[in-house]
């Protein structure tokens, strides 16, 4: 048992090697990411293999997930967004969803913890910067200099426009920050909370006597929090994807 609630976020190299002086070891974080992405890829190719007219159970899940994200992209970024960015958003959503969900499973046997890749800010930052630069590149490629219109919403009176532009510029550049930190902080805080409450159980049992009976309280709390964390795992993947759609909408239609 881990006594330290932070211990679950430690990264251990599994296969060490370096690339031109950089430490490029295959770590438990890499393993968890590969497992999440591989599991999603395997499930979708397996579920869609029959491609039956009357779908089976797995195919309903796969098609339902696809339609769910498709509807979200259409609401956020319009038909053009669906044509261009559905695979991108769907991949992002699935990767974050699988990372969060795999991280919810407790370790067993020699595996003390199943690592949660989204609890590392470097992972969420990479994803958020990917979205940020996609928006900038697509915005300039599609609209040219008209892309700067995202900083000047239409219908704003001229005397207040300079102030609105300052606010819009600040909000545009703080997007990748809040995008990355939101996912990271939610996952990190949830996992620390779970471990803290779970740690109360052996502490109370070890205290002995009447405290042993009381240990049922943090146990019940841990179970309840687990339910909440499953909701958070889905919700944060959903929030990340829906914000991606809204940012991509800005790149496709900058004039508001």
């Amino acid at each position: 048992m881990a006594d330290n609630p932070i211990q679950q976020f430690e990264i251990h190299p599994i296969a060490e090697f370096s690339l031109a002086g950089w430490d490029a070891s295959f770590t438990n974080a890499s393993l968890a990411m590969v497992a999440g992405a591989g599991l999603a890829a395997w499930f979708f190719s397996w579920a869609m293999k029959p491609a039956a007219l009357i779908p089976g159970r797995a195919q309903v899940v796969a098609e339902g997930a696809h339609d769910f994200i498709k509807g979200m992209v259409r609401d956020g970024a319009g038909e053009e967004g669906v044509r261009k960015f559905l695979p991108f958003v769907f991949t992002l959503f699935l990767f974050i969803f699988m990372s969060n969900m795999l991280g919810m499973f407790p370790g067993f046997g020699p595996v003390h913890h199943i690592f949660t890749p989204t609890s590392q800010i470097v992972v969420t930052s990479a994803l958020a910067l990917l979205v940020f630069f996609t928006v900038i590149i697509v915005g300039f490629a599609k609209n040219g200099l008209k892309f700067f219109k995202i900083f000047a919403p239409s219908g704003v009176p001229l005397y207040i426009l300079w102030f609105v532009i300052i606010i819009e510029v600040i909000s545009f550049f703080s997007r990748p920050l809040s995008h990355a930190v939101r996912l990271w902080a939610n996952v990190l805080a949830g996992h620390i909370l779970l471990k803290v409450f779970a740690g109360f159980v052996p502490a109370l049992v070890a205290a002995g006597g009447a405290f042993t009976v009381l240990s049922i309280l943090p146990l019940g709390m841990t179970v309840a929090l687990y339910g909440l964390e499953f909701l958070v795992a889905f919700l944060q993947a959903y929030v990340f994807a829906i914000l991606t759609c809204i940012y991509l909408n800005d790149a496709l239609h900058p004039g508001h």
Partner: protein
Amino acid sequence: MDAEAAKYIGAGLACLGMLGAAIGVGNIFGSFLSAAIRNPSAAQGQFGNLIFGFAVTEALGIFSLLIAILLLFVV
């Protein structure tokens, strides 16, 4: 004052910023519920807007959390 103590006091004060985010997020879900109870058939279509408003409001609380974390672990 000891610089180390000031760091922890600052981190604690920075967390007060989450108070505003808490009020905002509660306001969003409360308003959504009161509107959804009046017109349940229109509620489904507003789920995306609800989550977007929640995410944007939550971002401000996250910025104060970020300041607290920076104070604790970086400064």
